[in-house]
């Protein structure tokens, strides 16, 4: 029986044989790809040769010669390009990490507030989310920096808020004092960092709030009602009953928001904060190594994304329902 069927009843011509056609198409596609890539590389090679440049990472160890406005990593102009880029990366991480924490905090509060019994509060959260999501982030950033922070008064007329002083020379936390017309002491944030953080946090928090809202909404009504009938307060219901269940929906959503935030931090270049991208651009100018600098940037951002995803996956495993 099987032996008979093994020989096809009708001879199928090869062009009707999907498997063969598939392989043929793949081969053609692969060939095209190879040719295209080869052509691009040949052009690259020729253009670089014409300009007398060769791809190399040797310049990384040369002294950079430029200063960077603010770095966490000790850095001076005589350090290498590699160290300058590292200082930029650490500046980026500084923004990303503090941005993640602040935006998550604000986002969760706003997301939870959208379930408040108070219609005024619900209305405000709605307005906030709709307002922020429909205005481009870059516009918000330049608004915060140029329109708000750059209009702050000079140091000797600084705005005093509890534990906070705002002046053109920076944002001072924890009690700075005026000495010779300059504010000193306390923790100083540069205007650029402050504006970047403000813009990023307010923007990302709106999206995170929506993720949180979706998560909370996914918890069945019965859960609220059951908890309520047990006599729990609204805050308790949220904290003990709803959020643990909602987290399973929220965490994957947060992952993509966090990645967006990390990528959006590169807009720092528009307001003068020396993040990785800004330092990379300076490096490109001083060395002319466009291709190398770009590949480096791409690699670093990809790794950053992967790290965030890995961390969020770990969190996801933690909050997953443990079924026994």
């Amino acid at each position, binding site marked *: 029986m099987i032996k008979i069927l093994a020989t096809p009843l009708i001879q199928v011509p090869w062009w009707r044989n999907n498997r063969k056609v598939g392989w043929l198409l793949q081969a053609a596609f692969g060939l095209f790809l190879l040719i295209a890539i080869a052509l691009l590389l040949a*052009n690259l090679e020729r253009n670089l040769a014409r300009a007398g440049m060769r791809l190399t990472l040797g310049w990384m160890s040369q002294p950079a010669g430029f200063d960077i406005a603010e770095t966490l990593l000790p850095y001076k102009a005589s350090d290498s390009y590699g160290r300058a880029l590292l200082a930029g990366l650490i500046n980026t991480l500084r923004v990303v990490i503090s941005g993640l924490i602040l935006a998550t905090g604000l986002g969760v509060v706003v997301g939870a507030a959208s379930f408040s019994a108070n219609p005024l509060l619900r209305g405000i959260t709605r307005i906030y989310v709709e307002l922020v999501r429909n205005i481009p982030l870059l516009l918000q950033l330049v608004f915060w920096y140029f329109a708000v922070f750059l209009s702050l008064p000079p140091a000797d007329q600084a705005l005093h808020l509890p534990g906070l002083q705002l002046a053109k020379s920076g944002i001072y936390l924890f009690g700075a004092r005026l000495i010779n017309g300059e504010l000193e002491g306390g923790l100083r944030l540069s205007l650029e960092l402050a504006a970047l953080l403000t813009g990023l946090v307010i923007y990302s928090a709106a999206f995170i709030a929506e993720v949180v809202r979706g998560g909370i909404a996914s918890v069945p*009504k019965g859960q609220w009602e059951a908890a309520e009938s047990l006599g729990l307060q609204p805050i308790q219901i949220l904290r003990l009953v709803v959020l643990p269940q909602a987290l399973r929906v929220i965490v994957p959503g947060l992952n993509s928001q966090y990645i967006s935030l990390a990528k959006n931090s590169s807009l720092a270049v528009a307001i003068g904060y020396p993040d990785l991208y800004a330092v990379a651009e300076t490096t490109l100018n001083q060395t002319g190594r466009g*291709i190398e600098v770009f590949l480096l940037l791409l690699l670093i951002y990809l790794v950053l994304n992967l790290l965030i995803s890995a961390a969020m996956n770990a969190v996801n495993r933690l909050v997953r329902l443990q079924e026994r």
Partner: protein
Amino acid sequence: MKRSPLTLQRQLFGSLANSAFTLALFALLVWAGWGVLSWAFGSAQWLVLRANAATLTIGRYPDAQEWRLWLLLGMLTSLAGVSWGRLRGLNNWPLNDRIAALLFVISAVLLPWLLAFGAINQLRLIFLVLLLLLLRQWSGGAWSKAFGKWWALVWGITYVFGLWLIAGGLGLPAVRPSDWGGLVFTLLITSLTLLLALPFGVLLALGRRSGLLLVRWVCVAVIELIRGAPLITLLFVGQNLVGFLSPNGFAPDRVWRATGVLTVFAAAYLAEAVRGGLNSIPMGQQEAARSLGLSSVQTMGLVVLPQALKVALPALGGQCISLLQDTTLLSIVGLFDLLGIARSVLANPDWLGRYAEVYLFLAVLYWCSCAALALGSRALEKRLATNYS
């Protein structure tokens, strides 16, 4: 969160704590509102917008050629009016559009006055709005239905004609892309990018599900690499590195390079949205279509894709809005989109420190456009929703 029916009063002032909270919120709102209003009517100097209204709208487009943009606006208005009327004529049109009509009238009267347009431009705007509303009124009828399926083609031809009007050539004096700017530029780039990115995105999504390993891998690599990088680094490639990859450093104008980069960028995101839609179509649809004797192209084009795109519509709408917002990044690479032209206006020492006025105006513009897009995509979703009952 079902609660026993509460009056608004009890919701706001149910308990002592709640009352205090409501009052505090209210005070905060009043304080913020008062601050904004007193700034807007007190210390704000709106002259910067009046003086630069034309620049913000059309950038450095030559004055002598401005009539081309008015003509284009007139054509678009007429088409929009007719389309609007046709949509209203449909029996399950989900939106009440009287508010929109009112808004148009108000803005046509108010905007020119606020921005101190010349008398001629004011008349032109009022005429356009009248045209829009009249066509909306008249075109629900039979004669426009006779057009039927050709209507999309009319839009397409108008779009291409509009591109020619803006760019010139073939008889008209050419206006170089570097002279395009402002609102016109933003709208042009956004629409062009969308039109190019959608088919490319669908192809990427199909490729990602293809059975051909090589095709699938390439598509996955392209999509994930692009989605992993910040847009600004990609624009950087477009502006600085494209020349290295082309023969003899040939590179098209930077506007076209930026459009290309935006297109590829948007396509990667659209592809993911489309893929979500494709995944939601049950296998049975495909099998049924195949067993009816449709070819694989027909199955995909006539059966699977239309359903998938419908499912993906909310995500696609979201991507359109993102794209409109992302065009602001063009200002970082030195192009004169709406934000770019605003920044160059603000660079003029005459308008030193007028950041708040200009940026707020831009924020309102972007907000309205994005909100309108969101509203439109939601209406389209409702309209296309299949009612099986």
